[in-house]
């Protein structure tokens, strides 16, 4: 069969449960694919690994894909894994802040100074006519323990975080409330991408891979298979699986975020207007020095139909 290495931006198995379900249920084997999963640190490293040929399929975010294209790397986004934004703006449960409008004058924690969450949050607040530096400021605090420390110290009033981070903090006793308005969920999260050369040479492999993902996603979303999902993800990342309370909470979050607001186009579909959003935000934040001339080349929905059909 075809050998495929998939590279993920983080080691969580629950975040990527369809992949681990597919592995655990031997769905790839049935399609004649031999899939190996690797985890690095962040989207830029995912893209670097792909362009070096170390991995055929990667799971970067939209903004880094645009940055890589601007650097001449012909990478194509194929499959929208986190169809909704993986980011959310969260505040402590007891905080007086109820909506983004209340963030006036607040310090907002972000992972890195110009991560995707920054563009995302800035977009929300710009729409509310707030200006960075005047009405609010960002403080890069990193993730995990560092973000928790920032909350505990009171250095930040809100945190623009990946939802999984928020879920982890909640299980560890920091009660948080999300204040992200629905419409901003269009800043979709990481999804599967390939180099164009691979796509041109191995359309069948991509077809099979996506088909399996769709099948595994539907399998995993079926409440009857919950225990199996937990078992497969635990095999993928035993330490994560050890803490059942945490993994359950995470799973609920992930299920929500991978389900598109509009399911009619099928799994993996990328609405062009969402890409436009990302594109604008990337230019605004300086990730792109200038708009890309061919945004359409950054993604393709050409396989979506056959994936969703084939999976049935």
């Amino acid at each position, binding site marked *: 069969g075809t050998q495929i*290495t998939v*590279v993920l931006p*983080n*080691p*969580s198995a629950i975040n990527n449960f369809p992949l681990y379900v597919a592995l655990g249920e031997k769905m790839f084997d049935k399609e004649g694919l031999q899939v190996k999963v*690797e*985890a*690095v*640190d962040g989207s*830029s*490293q995912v893209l*670097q*690994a792909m*362009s*070096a040929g*170390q*991995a055929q399929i990667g799971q970067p975010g939209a903004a880094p894909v645009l940055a890589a294209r601007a650097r001449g790397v012909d990478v194509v986004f194929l499959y929208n894994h986190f169809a909704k934004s993986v980011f959310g703006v969260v505040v402590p449960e007891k905080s007086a802040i109820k909506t983004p409008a209340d963030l006036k004058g607040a310090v907002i924690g972000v992972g890195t100074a110009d991560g995707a969450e920054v563009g995302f949050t800035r977009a929300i607040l710009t729409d509310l006519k707030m200006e960075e530096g005047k009405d609010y400021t960002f403080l890069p605090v990193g*993730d*995990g*323990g560092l973000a*928790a*420390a920032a909350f*505990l110290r009171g250095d930040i009033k809100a945190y623009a975080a990946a939802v999984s981070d928020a879920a*982890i*903090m909640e299980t*560890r*006793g*920091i009660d948080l409330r999300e204040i992200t308005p629905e419409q901003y969920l269009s800043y979709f999260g990481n999804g599967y991408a390939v180099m164009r050369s691979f796509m041109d040479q191995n359309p069948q492999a991509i077809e099979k891979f996506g088909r399996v993902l769709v099948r595994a996603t539907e399998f995993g979303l079926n409440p009857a298979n919950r225990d199996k999902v937990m078992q497969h993800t635990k095999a993928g*990342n*035993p*330490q*994560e699986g050890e*803490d059942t309370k*945490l993994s359950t909470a995470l799973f609920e979050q992930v299920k929500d975020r991978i389900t598109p607001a509009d399911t009619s186009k099928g799994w993996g579909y990328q609405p062009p207007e969402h890409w436009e959003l990302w594109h604008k935000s990337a230019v605004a934040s300086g990730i792109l020095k200038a708009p890309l001339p061919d945004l359409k080349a950054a993604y393709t929905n050409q396989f979506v139909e056959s994936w969703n059909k084939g999976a049935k």
Partner: protein
Amino acid sequence: MHAQGATVHGDVAAEAVPEQTIWAEHVSWIDRVPRWVSMLALMIGFLAVWQIIYLIELISPIILPSPLETIQDLFVVGKNLLTGDYMLLALWITTQEVLLGFIIAVVLGFALGVLVGETAFGERAVMPYLVAINTMPKVAFAPLFVSWLGFGIGSKVALAAFIAFFPVIVGTAAGLHAADQNARMLFKTMGASRWQTLVQLKLPTGMPHFFSGLKNAAVLVVVGAVVGEFLGGGKGFGELIRVAAAQLNTPRVFSLIIYLSLLGLATFWIVAWMQRRFVFWHKESVAEETLAQ
């Protein structure tokens, strides 16, 4: 100075001597405490302070776990390791990375060290660049290694070796300069070739320096392997720490770090043991001995 002098044995003067003139050497009580007692006392004191910090809630438990939790988790991890579960596999992977990284760091560092220590070109032209490279944050090169060597242990081995090779260079080069003028002249009188002088004189003489470079490298290589796993994935101990840290599972993070530091101490001790074995003629200074226990 007249024709006077000294006498031996009892005479008038001797009678003035008081009976008790013996004084004993004073050994401080703290020096007489056995080593394990003071180490244990220190450990208990440390744990007590830690527990107090925890109890008065100076720091949130998701940042600093309680010592008790940490010790419990030490047992959990220990059990996992002993039953050959996934952590043992992770430890084995990291151990491989450490060993291979160490070997590469030693070979590469030794070769460059000989270049730097033996040739004017190496010393004057190459060394400045090596120093400059050493001041760079080497972690930034992790993606380069991943893209060259993939996700297997290769890329971690490379990063570990890259982080650890510099002390070996310095140790080797310093060792090659350690032979004194007399010994060099002696070899010259014997008509020794440059190669013979290197192999039979400079290298053995430089062994103690070389080994102190190795000891530094032994510690750095563990750090390098773990950082490589932080950044480049893989299935080792560093990855476990990363996952635990992302989950805010701080007791686990602490207990994993403690096991890792045991791995570091183990490599360090192995090198120290090799030194005692192979450089038997060199007595370590007190400070060095302490480092090597």
